[in-house]
């Protein structure tokens, strides 16, 4: 599958009109310069030769050199953690918000608080996160000066680092919190209705201990399911949020690489995303079957 993906990426990148020699040339598009650039990046060679060259080095762990003359592998290694940190923080936000509300609404099904929370969750699902991001910048950064408007500080300064990532993580996390809450609510409703729970109650176990026990188990399954289902959405969300908040992560790297026609960089980035996707999906499947042997994924 990764071989197919690598060919798709390689072909796709070259299908983008506007060659990198021109992207690099800009005001310097004299034929001699263009030819020199093409020669430097092997663009004058036939496609299979270019592909072979790239994949041969990639297999050995060398993703090549980008237009900045920096190692693609090194660039990815320095940018990926930033996106992973953002992803992790936003997942934490969404778990903190989504799981308890899911449990509470399930327990209080049909009560006003259930309607209110489900209503808010629906709105949460419908708000474009990039718009929410823009509004958050205006309110919390420009008007109130509570948090920085964007940018990134490395984890060497943990407090500044968190301050910079808080707004983006919350904005991104809210949408996922809504998904988590809905999923959690329905799985809690399912399990609270089972014979097992009725038996437990009959045995005289307190309501809360039953709920808590189920909540824990269900929350693990829910988070795994949602992560599996929403991984693509999460990655897309990270890209837009990084662009809006000016975070130098993997997402903004991808967009810049496409705009600059930086072939080696685009190839490296997309290949890493594809690999990551496969790995996470595999992990989700494994965790899923461990948690719930009854369910087999379609």
């Amino acid at each position, binding site marked *: 599958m990764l071989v197919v993906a690598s060919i798709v990426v390689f072909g796709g990148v070259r299908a983008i009109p*506007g060659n990198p020699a*021109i992207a690099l040339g*800009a005001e310097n598009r004299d034929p001699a310069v263009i030819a020199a650039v093409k020669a430097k990046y092997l663009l004058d060679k036939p496609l299979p030769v270019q592909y072979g060259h790239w994949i041969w080095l990639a297999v050995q762990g060398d993703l090549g050199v980008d237009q900045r003359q920096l190692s693609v592998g090194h660039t990815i290694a320095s940018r990926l953690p930033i996106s992973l940190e953002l992803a992790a923080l936003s997942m934490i936000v969404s778990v903190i918000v989504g799981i308890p509300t899911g449990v509470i609404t399930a327990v209080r099904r049909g009560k006003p608080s259930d309607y209110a929370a489900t209503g808010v969750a629906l709105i949460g699902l419908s708000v474009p996160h990039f718009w929410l991001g823009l509004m958050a910048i205006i309110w919390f950064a420009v008007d109130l000066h509570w948090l*920085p408007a*964007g940018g990134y500080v490395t984890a060497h300064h943990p407090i500044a680092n968190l301050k910079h990532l808080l707004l983006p993580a919350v904005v991104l996390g809210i949408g996922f919190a809504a998904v988590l809450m809905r999923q959690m609510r329905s799985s809690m409703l399912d399990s609270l209705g089972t014979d097992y729970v009725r038996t437990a109650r009959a045995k005289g176990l307190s309501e809360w201990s039953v709920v808590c026990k189920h909540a824990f188990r269900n929350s693990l399954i829910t988070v795994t399911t949602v992560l599996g289902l929403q991984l693509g959405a999460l990655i897309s969300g990270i890209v837009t949020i990084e662009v809006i908040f000016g975070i*130098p992560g993997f997402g903004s790297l991808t967009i810049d690489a496409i*705009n600059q026609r930086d072939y080696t960089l685009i190839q490296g980035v997309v290949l890493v995303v594809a690999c990551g996707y496969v790995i996470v999906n595999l992990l989700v499947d494994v965790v899923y079957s461990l948690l719930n042997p009854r369910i087999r994924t379609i």
Partner: protein
Amino acid sequence: MNRNRIAAAVSAAVGAGLLALLISATAGASGKQAVKFKAGGTLTVAMTNGEPDALDPTLARTFSGREVFLTICEKLYDLDAHTNIVPQLAAALPKVSSNKLSVTIPLRHGIKFNDGTPFNSAAVVKTMTRYLTFKGSVRASELSAVTKVTAKGKYAVVFHLKAAYSPLTAQLADRSGMILSPKQMSKLGANFARDPICVGPYMYKNRVAGDSITVVKSPFYYAKSKAHFAKIVFKIYNDTTAAAQALKAGTVQALDAIASTDIPSIKADKALSITKAAGLGYGGITINIGNKNGLLKLPYQNVGTDLASSPKLRQAFEMAINRNTLNKVVFGGTVLPGCTPVSPSSVWFDKSIKCTGYNPNQAKSLVQQSGISNPTVNLMVPTGTVALREAQFIQAEEAVVGIKVNVQSTDFVTSLSKADAGTYDAFLIGWSGRVDPDGNIFGFVATTGTLNDSGYSKNIVDRFLSHARSASTTKARRHYYHAAVQQILNDRPLIYLDHPIASAGISKKVAGVTMYPDTLLRVAFAGYTQ
């Protein structure tokens, strides 16, 4: 969010050097004597003209890259505030032999590279050899007149030329004149960009791709006392609004190009000052007249679109645009309206040329006279909010006179490819500008010009331009450029609309930041005030 992509990819090399006026430079420049600098501190500069490419002068093309090089790689020659060429690593201006084929440049003594190795003629020769022979070297075409460079003793070099080439000094005042450490060249070879070492007040520390470049004060610099910061961080912002907010919040202390929409709020901020410089470039519309088979696929033949086939329609097209309203609505008053390839900030600016003024009524009747019913123009625009705003402005103005404009928003790189291929009608694109008018004119309208996307070919213009290149007196050159520009304005392969003014925002805690008409932000000799 490709705002400023044009500027981003634009690399403004300085052409043959002559005077240009600096419209205004505020901030620290004027009060140099009074300012007392505090040593140390970190300056963070927001760069909004795109990310620098390779930090190897052999390969570098971007505008932003030059801003970084100003702090870490000095050149044989430099420009002063009035774009005069002055010696930097050279000891004096070059001496040209009587047959004009060899140019001798004396070098300064006692200078060290930022790895402690000595700067001398051997280093210059090794650098120039790299520029001339390195695979993929961008400098090779700038130095195409040079056959070889030899050492003349330890502190002088001789450039041997194929033919007389007066712009050489100007080239050596830009990236072609940066001298690299021979030790580092041998060590890193093709990977010089990973740790570039030259002579400079600061030295390269590290780079986070897409995010920032950090340089630190050099212990080896010959005028150490002039460099005040301990560290300068160049931080890349793709979004000008975010950069402006960072400046206001104090996250960055300087912003190299403020978007017009952010100027009011920065002006209102008492902790900030704005430095302006009218650039040497222009904004305009390139019209495809004869680029039927692609750039330099001669002979150019008329492409037969409405605009290409009717000079009257082109005239109407120009008359429909109100340059002053364009400046107000689209650019928030941040450009100088103009109609020629040369900016009023240049001494080469020709006041005697008359513009085609705004005249919608005459434009209407010209459309009638053109005999084309429902004329349509496909206007290609590189994506990006400002360019799109401008295109939509033009669309509205043309609609008034009966010309239908289809705005074709096209990714920047694709738009350049299409322009070179000739698969467009009209292209909204500017030029960053050169010191010598030749750099703003020849490439675009001469039949053999390497940027002649219009496919314009006119004998008389070719003749004027080549005379202007070989003429020895300024007066004669002016005369030829005047004639050429008159003819271009009449034929309209390009319609010039404006000359951008660059604005940089600087924290008032910092002094000594300047901007010349090359619109690069110069921070190397700035510092925090006491």
